[in-house]
């Protein structure tokens, strides 16, 4: 059990950073250059852990970051990695999709606690933008997932995975998938929805005051969290995976789609992104509800 959980965390951590390296490499190829080595993000995080951190803003600041990290890890632990497998399942037999959806909000809230405690206006702006965007993001995502639950008559992730043995949900309910995917791009923080950390506008947004180890922790959290989201989408819409290689392949394809979308679109404004998310993907997902 604990060994299992340990391996899950290790896997998520390493795959998260591997995908970050791939993200930078693929965008570099789009830009027409070589880009950094794939393990660059890993090197960065080790280096940041070895830096001193000069700033401290009281206990709430630390608590916020701890919240973020824990939220990401716990969310990851409630999602089974593999299809019909007794390993790498974490707590998933004790929880279901509702719990996951609830836990997914924990990270941003913890972020808000931490940033609110340091008086940096850019950090506060970033958190405000993030929470505003979260509203727009969750509507289509939740609608699509509710549609899935209705279709499968269950909220258990492993059951939903098992039910797609002959046809994936992505093809069974394409509209739901499109709605979920668009908001998933936003969840991954990719352009055009990257309003939170827009450097040309508000420096690094929430991470403006993060330094040294805090920044490294934030990086690791986002790595684990992004892998978690990939995992969730793969499980729900792409039929899960029977072994690790299949898992890597499916997550990577999904990830590639996100990267390529992010590279050719420019950033929305905060209000603009919420408007778009409510107009387009929400409507698509709602229409998809009727075809179940």
């Amino acid at each position, binding site marked *: 059990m604990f060994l299992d959980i340990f391996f899950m965390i290790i896997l998520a951590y390493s795959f998260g950073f591997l995908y970050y390296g791939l993200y930078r490499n693929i965008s570099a190829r789009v830009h027409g*250059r070589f880009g950094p080595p794939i393990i660059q993000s890993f090197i960065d995080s080790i280096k940041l852990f070895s830096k001193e951190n000069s700033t401290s803003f009281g206990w709430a600041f630390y608590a916020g970051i701890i919240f973020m990290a824990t939220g990401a890890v716990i969310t990851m632990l409630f999602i089974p990695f593999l299809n019909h497998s007794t390993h790498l399942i974490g707590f998933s037999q004790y929880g279901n999709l509702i719990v996951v959806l609830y836990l997914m909000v924990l990270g941003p809230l913890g972020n808000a606690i931490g940033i609110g405690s340091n008086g940096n206006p850019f950090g506060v702006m970033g958190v405000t933008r993030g929470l505003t965007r979260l509203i727009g993001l969750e509507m289509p995502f939740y609608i699509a997932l509710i549609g899935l639950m209705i279709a499968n008559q269950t909220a258990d992730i492993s059951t939903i995975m098992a039910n797609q043995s002959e046809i994936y949900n992505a093809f069974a309910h394409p509209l739901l998938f499109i709605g979920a995917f668009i908001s998933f791009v936003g969840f991954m923080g990719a352009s*055009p929805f990257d309003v939170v950390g827009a450097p*040309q506008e508000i420096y690094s947004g929430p991470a403006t005051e993060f330094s040294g180890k805090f920044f490294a922790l934030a990086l690791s959290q986002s790595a684990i969290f992004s892998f978690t989201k990939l995992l969730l989408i793969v499980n729900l819409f792409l039929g899960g995976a029977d072994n690790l290689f299949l898992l890597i392949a499916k997550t990577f394809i999904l990830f590639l789609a996100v990267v390529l979308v992010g590279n*050719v679109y420019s*950033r929305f404004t905060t209000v*603009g992104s919420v408007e778009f998310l409510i107009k387009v993907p929400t409507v698509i997902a709602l229409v998809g509800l009727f075809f179940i």
Partner: protein
Amino acid sequence: MQKNNQLIKIFHGPQHPGITGNMSVELDLLGETIKKARTHVGYLHRGFEKLIERRTIIQAFTIVCRICVPEPDPNEENFARAVENLADIEISEKAKYIRVMVLEMARLGALFLWMGGQSSSIGLGTIGQWSVHDRDLILDLFEELTGGRVYHMYIYPGGVRRELPNGFLDKLSQLLDYLESRLPLYDNVFFDNSSFKKRAMGVGIVDTNEALRYGFVGQVLRGCGIKRDVRKDNPYLVYDKLDFEIPTFEGGDVYARAMVRRSEIRESIKILRQVITQMPQEGLIMQKIPKHRKFKLKKDDTFVATESARGEFAYYMAGDGTEKIRRMQVKGPSLIHGFTLLEKLLIDEELSNVAMIMNSLGICPPEMER
């Protein structure tokens, strides 16, 4: 960063990824809406006008191109033309053509650099990578022609400093073909990109009625549909013998200015092609000018202007009969844009649009404070 009556006061720059150069805009924010904007310059002040008073012509010539970093050649052209007016030098036809070529290449480079800045300011980094790479190819040609990548020190009073290298014009035409083959790519990903239109349309609208009177220049004016360009209005060098259009666009917003620049790239490629065909083979490139200790200006003053990639670049020069320049005053295109216009446009604007508006106005600090 202090709070006073619900307005957060932040300094947008000088250390900021979204600022154009080393300057600072002091913003009073209500939420993310700007209530008051105030421009601060002086981070790049070097006192050029004082330094030039202490230098002879050739010494001043070496520093005058440092006034505007992205495109130094309009400065050299202004300086050279002002000195020629005050010393009664007439330059040859070939030198004029070479100068036009250099100026247009510099304009192309600056426009490509602007494309990078404008697209990065709205988070479309891909275009920045591509266009800076293409600008670098132009810089390579500059290096072959003048020996310098960024600062060329090529246009000297009396002509230009070097003969064209062998086969330079062929290389230039090949480069132009390459750039033209790249332009549709930029159109697809940047200019016709729906997300760029969504961001840029209706933002930073300049009032057309006051544009002329307030002394706006360049794309800000042409983006309002007013056809003004120094190359047409009072042509210098051989611009009156070349056939090119002054693109204009209605609307006066960021998108209009972007569209104007988009067609200007094509126009200056057209100009360069004509220069390549009409360039006279013979003709000396440098007139006979006195030795630099005896290079004296008559006691008079003059006012010259050149169309840079961001608008009218104007010099006022006064000589006093000695070998030193009595007074040289620079008026960059973005002096008025950076203060009168920017402080007006930013009011009730979103914080997310500051970088975009500054880029589209073509604000460049080193020429505002010399």
